[in-house]
């Protein structure tokens, strides 16, 4: 199981799912229509490190963060 958490304004409780890669996470998240428009503009962190590769392998207990558009300052 991995955990997917939704940061800032997304306002959605964390999900737990079985997934071997980020591509599998993507497929599962897209089943929720409300998330599709967020996913287009969100970046992704794996265990608090930003990631850029859908083939990134996942292991038990991994934590995936979904980061919507930012505006600090």
């Amino acid at each position, binding site marked *: 199981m991995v955990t997917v958490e939704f*940061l*800032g*304004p997304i306002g959605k409780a964390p999900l737990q799912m079985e997934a071997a890669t*980020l591509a599998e*996470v*993507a497929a599962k*998240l*897209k089943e929720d229509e409300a998330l*599709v428009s967020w*996913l*287009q*503009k*969100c*970046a*992704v*962190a794996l265990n*608090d*490190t*930003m*990631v*850029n590769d*859908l083939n990134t392998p996942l292991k038990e207990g991994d934590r995936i*963060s*979904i*980061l*919507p*558009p*930012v*505006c*600090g*300052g």
Partner: protein
Amino acid sequence: MELYNGPLDVKEIFGRWLDEEAESNYGAYIPFVGTIRAEDGIDALSFDIYEPVLKAWFDAWQERAKERGAVVKMAHAIGDVPVHTSSYISAVFSPKRRVALELIDEFVEDFKANAPIWKYDVRNGERIYAEDRSTPMDGAGLLA
């Protein structure tokens, strides 16, 4: 890196950073102070921060600055920050002015683009995500 609940004590932070580097022999100190503007009828802005990724972003910048002989510092507010108070201070110290002037620009612009901080307008007690002013981070859309 310093995070505070509510507005920053700008003078305290500016002065303490000055004192911290008083003997470091830096010739240039450039802070950037961000203050909440009264506009569009807002009472305050409000901020969420994801601290672990912000810390990693800041640590990477500290390394980048070090390679150029410089130091960067940063403070940001969490939660509500009323109009005309400050939410953000960053700063560069470096031996020479040219590096300091270039770094403060790069540091502040990359902060705006990639620091994991979410901004909300506060109007009549309601907190509304400032979506139109927000920027997708580098690598956004990976799961789309």
